[in-house]
């Protein structure tokens, strides 16, 4: 459905039921311009930078998807000690050196975890034109650990790196790698799961939260939880090399009988090293169940499109996506391609349908407006800068690496509020404060100041000479839905300082472009652009993606 159709309909006819009008998964063949590109980039990357929009304007939707769905070419740096200070010095790791090989240290782990969070923020802030970073966050939210709960920064790091390696692969392999990762073995007690008294923790979440869910047709039973727990007995972490191994002494060798939901399947118990094979059989059984692909596609849909899944969506979007997932042997990319290339994704009624997560809000603002990052040689400043962003995300209720529980952040699963829960009387003023801070003052670190580069960003926009075109451009770029006409007028009044003639702005902007180093010419345009962007960023529409 197009915007114009919608307006037309509401004006002329009583509201028509929305679902039949919605585009389905047929390939999108409509307009491919700034609005569509921005929509796609907002969802698949952290913000839509002008460079990326222009880059993809030169390409077709097909080519764009090829690129977005390819793995990132970036090899992230290794996190290093950035936390030594007058209160704490890591006994094993000098400042600037990596801690990922250092032995566990009760005292040093908090600093290392802090470093890891800043490192993750760096990866998001410096992402390329690939969905890779968003997918890492997707998987992390889908099957999370809590950095502080694991309390061993190396394993936390390995967990993220495992997700990076698997993020665009097949779901079964991802789940298997997660199951055996040292962080997860400790986070959900697998490490202590012993035949004498099997620990259900992971066996339960594997089904309830990660693979089957609690949908209407999810009929797994307590017996299934117990049977899975028995299969999972014996997996351990080798502390020498962080690899997993199978401790056959701890493994339950009995036959495991599953409920009717799994076709009364019996997984035969195996003695000795062969016991390890039961895990593959368990995963095959789970993934063979229809609910599994449906559940994962619902999670994808809620993360990337919209939380509202009604019967129409279930039938026309989720079910076909799940079918694609199954036929592609659980490879995720074909599903993403089908979704992001569909009429449904580009339907006007699926634009602006997500409230930006804290990370999306922070990182996209910084990326779109080119907040400078302290250079690598200013290591302390660089990490302090990221630390400030991590802290902001934390006070907006998204503590990077430490979601509230084993189910991830509420916004992605909690009925009925979903992403509305990001916006509270606490977090909304916090988001506003952050905007003001980084827009008007900038984030200071000891030797660096990072402020949104308003002038540099606007200077890339040819339309900036005409105040009306500049406003139109900004509204199109910054908001996923149309705003009230009077808002356009308010913005114009700001740019023109209340004058009526457009050329007063044009002249000022032109003079600035001619002499960008002239302090006064700079201040003259900046004194209008700061309140201009302040107003844009504080508008409710700016919270939407």
């Amino acid at each position, binding site marked *: 459905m197009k915007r114009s159709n*919608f307006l037309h309909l509401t004006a002329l006819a009583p*509201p028509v039921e*929305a679902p039949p009008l919605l585009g389905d998964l047929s390939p999108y063949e409509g307009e491919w311009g700034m609005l569509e590109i921005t929509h796609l980039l907002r969802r698949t990357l952290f913000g839509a930078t002008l460079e990326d929009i222009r880059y993809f304007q030169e390409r077709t939707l097909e080519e764009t998807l090829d690129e977005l769905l390819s793995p990132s070419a970036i090899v992230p740096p290794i996190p290093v000690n950035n936390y030594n*200070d007058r*209160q704490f010095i890591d006994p094993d790791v000098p400042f600037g050196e990596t801690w990922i090989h250092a032995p*566990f240290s009760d005292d040093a*782990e*908090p*600093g290392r975890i*802090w470093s890891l969070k800043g490192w993750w923020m760096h990866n998001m802030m410096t992402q390329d034109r690939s969905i890779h970073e968003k997918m890492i966050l997707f998987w992390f939210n889908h099957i999370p650990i809590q950095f*502080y709960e694991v*309390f*061993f920064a190396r394993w936390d790091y390995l967990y993220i790196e495992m997700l990076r390696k698997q993020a665009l692969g097949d779901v079964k392999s991802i789940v298997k790698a997660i199951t055996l990762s040292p962080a997860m073995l*400790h986070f959900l007690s697998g490490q202590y799961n012993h035949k004498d008294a099997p620990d259900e923790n992971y066996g339960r979440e594997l089904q309830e939260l990660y693979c089957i869910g609690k949908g209407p047709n999810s009929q797994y039973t307590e017996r299934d939880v117990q049977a899975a727990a028995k299969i999972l007995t014996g997996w351990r972490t080798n502390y020498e090399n962080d690899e997993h191994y199978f401790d056959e002494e701890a493994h339950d060798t009995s036959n495991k009988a599953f409920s009717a939901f799994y076709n009364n399947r019996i997984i035969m118990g195996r003695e000795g090293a062969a016991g390890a094979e039961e895990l593959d059989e368990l995963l095959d059984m789970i993934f063979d169940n229809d609910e599994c692909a449906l559940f994962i596609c619902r999670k994808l849909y809620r993360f990337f499109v*919209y939380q*509202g899944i009604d019967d129409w969506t279930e039938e026309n979007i989720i079910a076909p996506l799940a079918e694609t997932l199954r036929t592609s042997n659980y490879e995720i990319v074909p599903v993403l391609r089908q979704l992001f290339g569909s009429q449904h994704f580009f339907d*006007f*009624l*699926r*634009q*602006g349908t*997500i*409230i930006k997560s804290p990370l999306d809000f922070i990182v996209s603002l910084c990326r779109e407006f080119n907040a400078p990052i302290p250079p690598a040689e200013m290591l302390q400043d660089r990490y302090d800068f990221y*630390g*400030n962003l991590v*802290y*902001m995300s934390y*006070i907006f209720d998204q503590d990077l690496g*430490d979601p509230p529980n084993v189910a991830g952040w509420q916004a992605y699963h909690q009925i009925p509020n979903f*992403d*509305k829960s990001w916006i509270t*009387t606490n977090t*909304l*003023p*916090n988001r*506003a*404060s*952050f905007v*003001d*801070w980084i827009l*008007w*003052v900038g984030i200071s*670190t*000891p*030797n660096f100041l990072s402020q949104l580069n308003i002038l540099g960003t606007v200077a890339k926009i040819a339309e900036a000479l005409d105040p009306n075109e500049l406003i139109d451009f900004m509204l199109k770029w910054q908001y996923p*839905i149309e705003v009230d006409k009077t808002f356009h007028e308010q913005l114009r*009044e*700001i740019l023109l*300082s209340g*004058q*009526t003639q457009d050329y*007063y702005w044009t*002249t*000022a902007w032109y003079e600035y472009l001619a002499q960008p180093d002239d302090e*006064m010419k*700079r201040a*003259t345009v900046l004194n209008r652009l700061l309140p201009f962007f302040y*107003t844009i960023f504080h508008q*409710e529409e700016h919270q*939407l993606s």
Partner: protein
Amino acid sequence: MKRRNFIKYAAAGTVMPHFIPFSGMGKVASASWVNLLQNAMIETDRVLVLVRLDGGNDGLNTVVPLDQYDKLYQARPHVILPERSLIKLDGQDKVALHPAMKGMRRLYEEGKVNIIQSVGYPNQDFSHFRSSDIWMSGADHDEVVNTGWAGRYLENEFPNFPVDFPNAQMPDPLSLEMGPRLSLTFQGNGVNMGMSVFDPSQFYRMVEGVQTPAPDTPAGDLLEHIRLIKRQSNLYGQRLVEAYLASRNLVAYPDKNNLAEQLAIVARLIHGGLKTRIYLVSISGFDTHDQQVEETDHRYGEHAELLYKVSTAIESFMDDLKMMGLEERVIGMTFSEFGRRITSNRSLGTDHGAAAPCFLFGKPVVGGVTGENPLIPNNARYQDNIEMQYDFRSLYATLLKDWFCLENSDLQKVMLDEYATLPVIATSGCVATSTREQNQKAGRNIISVFPNPTRDWVQFDVETEGFTLLQIFDSAGRLVATPMSSKFNKGQEQIRYDMRHLPNGMYHVRLQSGKTQQTRQIVKQS
């Protein structure tokens, strides 16, 4: 390895009220308007209302120098007002008003208006933008100042803002602007000290609790949620509504007059107990390059309509304040980024000019005319302009010193230089009130500095949260030292710092803690 019960690097942070246009959930002890009405009874705080005439008001057709009339007639034949139409002022044989300003004459005759002649600044800049910025910041013509004069004053008055604002001492926005622009006027070092309401109709919607309708779409549903939360977290907005509803206008204001509408709201807010110090209202359209007057009758036209609006709006406002018993508490001032050219355009208008008169109004004002008539040259040329008699910063300094009772040492800090004051405010002695003391303490002090001034060592007591950074800047804004930078702590810290290696002078120390910032001045002397 056992699970650790590690206390994270920071507990839930306290929330900084967001300065414009909504605030965080601070602690507002006396938020009910009943309390505030009681407070209003004993409230003695003074209020300043700034009236901005946007576009550059033609001063020579507003306050006409009668003794220059012939020369004016020659220089601006396309816009000159008929001599006999001009409004004479009691006791003034050389100064007359535009015929549309009868209301202003009445106020003048009641001794409530002082006309200050030829206000401007040296080396007039003719750009609207730049000249507005100069008027709002108080900068010299060749200097860039990124803060506003009123913002600096409010920062001096409320040094803890915005940490833990609103609060019982100051539950209200420090300043309020009607208009969308977030003027430079109220910009402080870092935070803006103002709140802005787009326009009267937005204000009424807020009063009525009407939310801007969102489309009936999934995105619209999210939008509605965000708008609801925004309203719930907008403590300042709630205070405005309470104050507004606790009062009513006691006179009728003229219709179809946007300035009158703004001033009517301001009167109700003041009467309703709002403690806001400074209001800024605007009327635009003064950029009269053409069609300033009607060709057939110069008494009429765009400029006449604007001045009529200004005059009747201010007259009603003053009458309303009198009925409300607030006359002694409020002073207003008109200003415009420049006057207009002496010579006129054939298109019946005038181009950008230089100095122009300002009206200071209010019962506490000393009535009269300050200064001499501008001198119009014989055979005025296009490039000729009105010479400045009074620096606009002298007016600000006068208001700050004689109306807000700011002491000299603070006055100089706020105005960035020394300016003579004018004897235009009839206060019976100005003593810093007890409210000053309260205001200094309002909110939460997250950084104290002592001794100050200092000769050598200085001690900072700071509150830390999340990332904390303490930096010292010299008077030119250059970073000279970073006495503290830390990551994990939440709590109190004491930092001692040796300033002996720094030259004498004024420094700013800025604390960035979590998401809040606070700035203090330190003086280093020998």
